[in-house]
């Protein structure tokens, strides 16, 4: 199947430089795809869907007949990131996470950044995700955020921008690993010929990161993953990661705090726990400290955490960095703590609590994208260019009534990547979520990431809750480095 009729429509394309002329890194892929017939490609697409179905990588369809499950939509044409682009992304992410960790340390302690007037105190005082019980906590190694997923987008000119920080419980990494698994099965020959960096090291890196948080005297720490349970939409990922790391997958009801330490109920009595990888929002982890109605957490957990009896990743309180108003200040945060200029720029952002900026936003609602400060998943959002008058009026109202809760950004013409639509290819908008691990000494960026794709024609919303799917993301080795592509060696055997 060829791409001769594939149109770029003026967008930046992840596989093509110009019509019929692929980026250097995409040439092998497109050549190999060209050798496959329509039928063959369709067949492989079905094989991929069947594999995902059999793996049970499904979600329940709400509001439909009981027991109806669907796979998360997956497009088989990978998205490719060149070595040069990746090196740049990696540097930018490491810088950002380092700065945000310093910010978290400061904001829950001395708040120097407020005293020095870099961020207005008002922003923090009114932040929903600034958790008062976390003030003066001192997480192990002074590190708050160990695991993050940062959303990147690319504009018309190919420039990468940071769209959103996810420092609470970012999900999606299991799809990165499973998508790769599926693609290796269905496109072995294409995969073989491209020099793709592998992603399967992630669980081992994650486990190392988690183990590094345990108290120094514990030689063989017990690490667990805390999940809300099987009805959570990310449960598949929780189980997958626990399985890959060989650690216990626990629910709140499996845990108990006795004598100031956290233990799990086992068939042989209670067993002490040293590190918890939480996949539950901080609000829910301890009904004694946060939401008293939470059934998912463990009463007394925060007390044990404060006393250093257990480590939690990410530390409760990291959500303040996800606040979209705080996001607007990240360039200043990087400058303040690292004395560096931001490498991967933010999307220009208007904060609506500022009178002047709000005025501009209200006058330009038809061209801007408005977002609520603490929503995610594509909710609480207005895309001006696609909106009706009534929707704009609704948002104007909301902004006026609660300006602190809204930001606005210019509409980015998100880059596109081809997807298979029946018997031909069409371009669809994509974003990219790389995953970053910090253990205090090193920062590891998984060479890959989740490429989310808006499957609906023309749509700019890539979230799975809004009709988005995913693609495998191929980060390529440096083609000039003779040592890297191991496959050259094996081919001479």
């Amino acid at each position, binding site marked *: 199947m060829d791409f001769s009729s594939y149109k770029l429509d003026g967008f930046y394309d992840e596989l093509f430089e110009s019509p019929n002329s692929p980026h250097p890194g995409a040439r092998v892929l497109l050549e190999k795809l060209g050798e496959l017939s329509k039928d063959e490609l369709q067949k492989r697409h079905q094989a991929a869907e069947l594999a995902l179905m059999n793996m049970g990588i499904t979600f329940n369809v709400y509001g439909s007949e009981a027991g109806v499950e669907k796979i998360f939509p997956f497009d088989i044409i990978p998205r490719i990131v060149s070595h040069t682009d990746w090196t740049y992304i990696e540097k930018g992410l490491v810088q950002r996470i380092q700065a945000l960790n310093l910010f978290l340390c400061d904001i829950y302690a001395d708040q120097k950044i407020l005293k020095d007037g870099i961020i207005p105190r008002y922003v923090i005082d009114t932040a929903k995700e600034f958790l008062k019980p976390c003030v003066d906590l001192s997480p192990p190694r002074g590190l708050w955020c160990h695991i993050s997923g940062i959303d990147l987008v690319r504009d018309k000119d190919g420039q990468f921008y940071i769209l959103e920080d996810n420092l609470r419980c970012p999900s999606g990494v299991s799809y990165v690993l499973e998508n790769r698994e599926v693609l290796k099965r269905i496109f072995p020959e294409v995969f073989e010929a491209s020099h793709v960096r592998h992603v399967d090291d992630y669980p081992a890196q994650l486990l190392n990161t988690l183990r590094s948080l345990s108290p120094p005297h514990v030689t063989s720490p017990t690490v667990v993953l805390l999940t809300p349970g099987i009805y959570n939409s990310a449960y598949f990922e929780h189980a997958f990661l626990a399985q890959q790391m060989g650690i216990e997958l626990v629910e709140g009801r499996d845990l108990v705090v006795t004598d100031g330490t956290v*233990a799990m109920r086992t068939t042989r*009595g209670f067993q002490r726990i040293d590190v918890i990888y939480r996949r539950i929002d901080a609000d829910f982890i301890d009904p004694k400290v946060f939401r008293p109605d939470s059934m998912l957490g463990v009463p007394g957990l925060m007390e044990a955490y404060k006393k250093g009896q257990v480590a939690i990743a990410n530390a409760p309180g990291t959500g303040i960095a996800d606040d979209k108003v705080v996001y607007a200040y990240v360039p200043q945060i990087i400058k303040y703590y690292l004395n560096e200029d931001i490498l991967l720029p933010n999307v220009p952002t208007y904060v609506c609590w500022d009178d002047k900026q709000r005025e501009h936003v209200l006058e330009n609602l038809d061209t801007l994208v408005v977002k609520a400060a603490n929503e995610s998943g594509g909710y609480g959002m207005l895309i001006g260019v696609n909106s009706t008058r009534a929707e704009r009026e609704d948002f104007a109202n909301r902004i006026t009534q609660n300006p602190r809760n809204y930001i606005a950004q210019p509409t980015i013409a998100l880059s596109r990547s081809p997807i298979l639509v029946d018997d031909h290819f069409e371009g669809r908008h994509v974003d990219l979520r790389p995953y970053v691990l910090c253990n205090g000494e090193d920062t590891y960026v998984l060479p890959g990431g989740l490429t989310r794709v808006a499957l609906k024609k023309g749509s700019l919303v890539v979230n799975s809750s809004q009709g988005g799917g995913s693609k495998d993301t191929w980060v390529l080795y440096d083609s000039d480095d003779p040592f890297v592509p191991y496959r050259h060696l094996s081919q001479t055997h």
Partner: protein
Amino acid sequence: MLSRAAESIYWMSRYLERAENVARFIEVNCHLMLDLPVEAKGQWEPLVLTTGDQHLFYENYATDNQANVIDFLTFSPVNPNSILSCLQNARENARSIREIISTEMWEQINKFYLQVQNIDKPQAQDAPHTYFTDIIMASHLFTGIQRNTMSHNEAWQFAQLGRALERADKTSRILDVKYFFLLPEGDDVGTLYDNIQWSALLKSTTALEMYRKQFGPIEPHNVINFLILNREFPRAIRYCLFEANQSLHTISGTPEGSFQNPSEQVLGRLLAELDYTSIDEIITRGLHEYLDAFQTRLNQIDNAVFETFFTISPSTSTA
């Protein structure tokens, strides 16, 4: 291991075993009907009795014909013991211990569930043999995968324990029900018709061939002996309890022949009784009475396992 996870794998295993047994009952009965004289073809009710869900059945169906019974036992969502319900439960349990079982096990249980969910019901009714054999084979495939892809660790032993107890339960139930229906027809004893019935009973537990190797001709006394007291056949009650007992002792580390918790005590005692019981004693006492008492004892074991391993509260803390 986590108590919750131990309970989940125990039930995952029980539900799968249950589904397989129901499929075999149906498959064998369909065959049996082909061999029976026309006037005796109404024998579908005993299948419902075997599962103990007769009240639920008559609440939902007017008559106990083949189509209704197969529907109830295979697809019915209101029947918690239908094959589909069992697989759904087994799968939900497996889902909650995804990190304990191997990926291969998960994929097989998942495929198995989808396979039954997607069965074309009218076709299954028309050609039951193919469909129910496929279900039985899917279950065998799962047990093989479990044996060969998962460490034979504590979790695995809980799965074995669940399966063995479920099997013992099912063999005792089918024996009880079939015996009840087989015996009263005094005139038929020793006839071809009688033989067919007893063979069907053995087939329901895949025991016919192994029985013949040991005893040769079909003889009710020997059939009962084989299904209750045999030490080598994997679906014989004695064998199942022996396996359950081994798993239990591997889990706890208590030497066999002694006990340290209530589950070991009740199971060990029942096993010892079986070891020193003769078939004549069982018949003299009355098979139905014997099996009834046996069922009660099995329930006690299940409760004891629950108390010993699955519920622990901070008051018993050793931490």
